[in-house]
């Protein structure tokens, strides 16, 4: 069972945030970073990244198969679907389908969320954190959470699980 100790970080626009994720409670999540600032210092290099970038470990880009998002050449940047995210995870990052989010030591898993068949979010479960799920919430905060704690009116439900090959 995951434990969620308190941290000093806070979400940006908390009223909006907790309205979007009504299942969140102090018992099922903890915020692990400040919200990505929309540039606090103009002299510093600036990056804005999202959930997919967080999952693949590239915090310098906004990964998404549409519009101005970065999408690798292995994918189809005009197809914004669960299958397209899964395709890139499969061919570029060596993931394969799996049935659920059961923790398996040493193997990273991801869960893709969709709302009315529209892909909205991806969360990851590292292989060394005892089953905790982790997410970058848009360009708001990073968070540890239970898998279903962020299901709801904004992200919909988990529709696909994948795990990284050994």
């Amino acid at each position, binding site marked *: 069972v995951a434990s969620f100790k308190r941290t000093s970080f806070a979400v940006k626009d908390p009223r909006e945030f907790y309205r979007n994720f009504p299942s969140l409670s102090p018992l099922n999540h903890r915020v692990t970073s400040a919200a990505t600032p929309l540039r606090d210092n103009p002299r510093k290099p600036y990056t804005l990244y999202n959930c997919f970038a967080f999952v693949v470990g590239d915090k310098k880009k906004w990964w998404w198969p549409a*519009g101005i*998002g970065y999408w690798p050449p292995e994918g189809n940047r005009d197809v914004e679907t669960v299958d397209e995210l899964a395709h890139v995870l499969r061919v570029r990052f060596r993931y394969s389908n799996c049935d659920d989010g059961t923790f398996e030591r040493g193997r990273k898993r991801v869960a893709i969320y969709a709302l009315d068949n529209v892909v909205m979010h991806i969360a990851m479960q590292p292989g060394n954190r005892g089953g905790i799920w982790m997410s970058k919430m848009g360009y708001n905060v990073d968070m540890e959470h239970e898998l279903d704690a962020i299901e709801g009116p904004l992200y919909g439900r988990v529709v696909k699980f994948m795990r990284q090959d050994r």
Partner: protein
Amino acid sequence: LIHLPHRRTPPASAAVRERLIAFFKMRQAVTVSSATSRTFDALADLWERETRNLSSVTAITSHPAYQTIIRMGRDVLPLILRRMQQRPALWFDALHRISGENPVKPQMFGNVQRMADAWVKWGTERGLI
């Protein structure tokens, strides 16, 4: 009584005239009414607040406040560019749809800083900021 020699003002050349016209057009472009500015700020704040938790570029740019800003037209170009200088966010689709231009190259996709810089340079060259 001192008679000064008669000084004729040389007629402005076509090039000078064109430069002056461009200058005044630019002044006109960057002068945005305070009502427009207030409306834009309110819509931009709402859009930021309500899309902050999203990753989908399509969902973010489909937000009604974002679409309203696009419909406000060229008057808001300086406002978007100035806001983007301070707070880079996913304004690129709006800028492209309002201006009909796009200085963002495919190799910049995903890099918000580089895309924002390209648009700020575009706006600066046109006297919009």
